[in-house]
């Protein structure tokens, strides 16, 4: 298929951070899987989205085997109403190698959580909230 490469640079930037968990996969290849399979749709381009992936402590991400079992074991019954839940990924749609690479990439995502006090915008927002109410 045709690969859209424009966000991959941004994705790869995330893969340089040290990780806590051992991975056998190729984070660079995993970044491409992450994009091609639309994982960013719910998890954001950097792991923050409707469901965060970065450093969440999720048991699903504790190791590659658990992660793979999670992907393979998703619901396979079509709900009556549209949902945006996590899709199912049987082996014929996402290979073990792709899962390995994807896991390596996800585990490489660094947290991106600045200190509140270190962001001028947040300080300003808090200052505004401290001001007395006026509605003129």
């Amino acid at each position, binding site marked *: *298929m*045709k690969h*859209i490469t424009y*966000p991959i640079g*941004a994705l790869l930037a995330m893969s340089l951070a040290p990780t806590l968990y051992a991975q056998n996969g190729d984070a660079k290849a995993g970044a491409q899987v992450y994009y*091609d*399979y*639309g994982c*960013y*749709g*719910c998890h*954001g*381009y*950097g*792991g*923050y*989205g*409707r469901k*965060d992936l*970065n450093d969440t402590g999720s048991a699903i991400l504790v190791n590659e085997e658990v992660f793979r079992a999670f992907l393979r074991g*998703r*619901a*396979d*019954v*079509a*709900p009556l*109403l*549209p*949902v*945006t*839940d*996590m*899709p*199912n*990924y*049987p082996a*014929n*749609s*996402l290979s073990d190698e792709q899962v390995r690479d994807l896991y390596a990439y996800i585990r490489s995502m660094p947290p*991106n*959580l*600045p200190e*509140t006090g270190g*962001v001028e*915008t*947040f300080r*300003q*927002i*808090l200052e*505004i*909230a*401290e001001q007395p*109410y006026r*509605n003129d």
Partner: protein
Amino acid sequence: MSKEQSSQEPSDHEVKVGRRHFLKGAASSAAALAVAPTAKAQNPSAFAASYTAPTYQQLQRDTGALTPPAIERTVVRPGSDLMVQVLKDMGIEFVAANNGSSFEGLQESIINYGSPPNKMPEYITALHEESSVDMANGYGKAEGKPMAVMLHGTIGIQHAAMAIYQAYYSGTPMILIVGRDDGFIQAHTANDMAAMCRSFTKWDALPKTLPECLEALQEAYRQAVTPPTGPTVVVVDMELQKEEARELQVPPFRPAVIEGIDVATARDIAQKLLAANNPRIATGSFRTPEGCAAAVELAELVGASASTTAHQGPMGFPQRHPLCGPGADINYDYVLGLEANSPHLSLQRPTVATLTAVRDTMGIGFGGLRDNPPATGRGAPRPQEGTVLTIDAQASIPLIIAEVSRLMTPEQRRRIEERRAAHAKANHEARMAALLEAIEQKKKGWDLSPISTARIYAELWPLIADEDWCLASPSSFSSSHHMQLWDHNKPYSYLGGQGAGGMGYGLGACTGAALAARERGRIVINIQTDGDFNYAPGSIWTAVHHELPMLTVMHNNRAWHQEFMFIQYMAGVRGRGTDRGHIGTTLRDPFIDYAKLAQGYGMKAEGPIDDPTQLAAALRRGLDVVKNGEPYLIDVLTQPR
């Protein structure tokens, strides 16, 4: 004939020109065209090859060279002048339209009648009827009163239909004037034009005489603003627009009379509010800004804490008012619901769902408006807890205030003052705690590229907090971060969603809100999703043309993201992989350059911006332009949500 010959010496039959461009040239050389009605005077290469040249007769008419047919009398006081006078009397500020021959009489009166002409109402040039109605929707939500829209016959109604439908769901008052010219293009006329949208409009009329027409326009206003509020339709025949009115006088306008509760009920409510140790006022969306002010007055008078929906939609209780919040004690012993649910008593005006039996004569049964709707699905009615009086809360509050004022004892007054102070302290503490918690969420991915939607809202807030602002775009697809970060203290702070979830609403609605804003020294913020933008981008031109103070920040995730996620799940269910989920759900190959697109419409614009550190400066530049009375667009590449 060779291509070269074709482009240099077209015959009358072969010439292909863009009509608007042609007319621009024709206007400056009308005399030449009058004697030589070919395209030789033009440069054919400048025109798109797919357009048919106007006929000689059309050109003569459009350039003013053709004298209208002689008539027996000169129309010195056309009926449409009186129609415009009716609109003036009712305070209609704007009439939006994409021009159509069936209302040319009325259009001519709007732009030429009165002193000054084209003012109250001002003709707003829209590029699509859907945009016209969306503008009226945005304006109506912001101001709680109607603006008008003109629609050209059957085709105008159909272009506008989805926007009317959404306004109906939102209960937005507006007056739709449909031109009808039975003797002209047959496909553009019909016996009962309003039937095409009767099931999703509140009221309609097809007046047969000019006096009836003037009355109908006035009644359309009254019906639009009387609960259940909504769009109304008057079909206006061309003959009535062009008729000589002679000595006919415009009837004086009688405002709508909107009923509230009776004195006995008001007294009962007042006694309960005064007797309660910890009363609460749950508020929803009032009809007009006066309703919000009245609710504040009542809450202050009785020292009740108040809930609000101001962060979810227009006409809400000011969110940062000291009484707004959970209050010092969440064990409320009497809750009065004003357009909101209550476990005790609530006053709620009827919605358009009550019109179904009368208006849905075809039995369409629109979801959410029909009898016995399913209990599931978005928009399904919520169960009521306590007693509900189906009556307008806004019209009821003054009587409650009067009764409270009459019944209140000095001791009660003292306790109320203490309670107010306690609530203010508690609500401020609750606000700060909620804000700190929200910031912890909003800072996730703060420095990532593409830019997080939270960062857009966060960076905007300090820049507009001291301005008079209106967030007119629906925010659910950009995760509604303003709800936690911004203070929604005005009736128009946030105008809410589309109404019926239809896309294409945002830009038009923001443009309509910006019409109101332009007259009132306000600015409009439009966090514009890319999918929504592309349905009817022409409002960009309208905003430029009418010099509207509107900042558009593109939430450019290059997709219809909700559908992207739906398709992904569906592909997963079927075990076929999500790697083709982008087909039909994304806007790639090519990416759309919204800054260039806006610039093409004449709007100042910049982007795409994907570096989060560049965002705040761009927002400042944009706001500087907007505060100067011009619209501005910033294309921001964003995270999906």
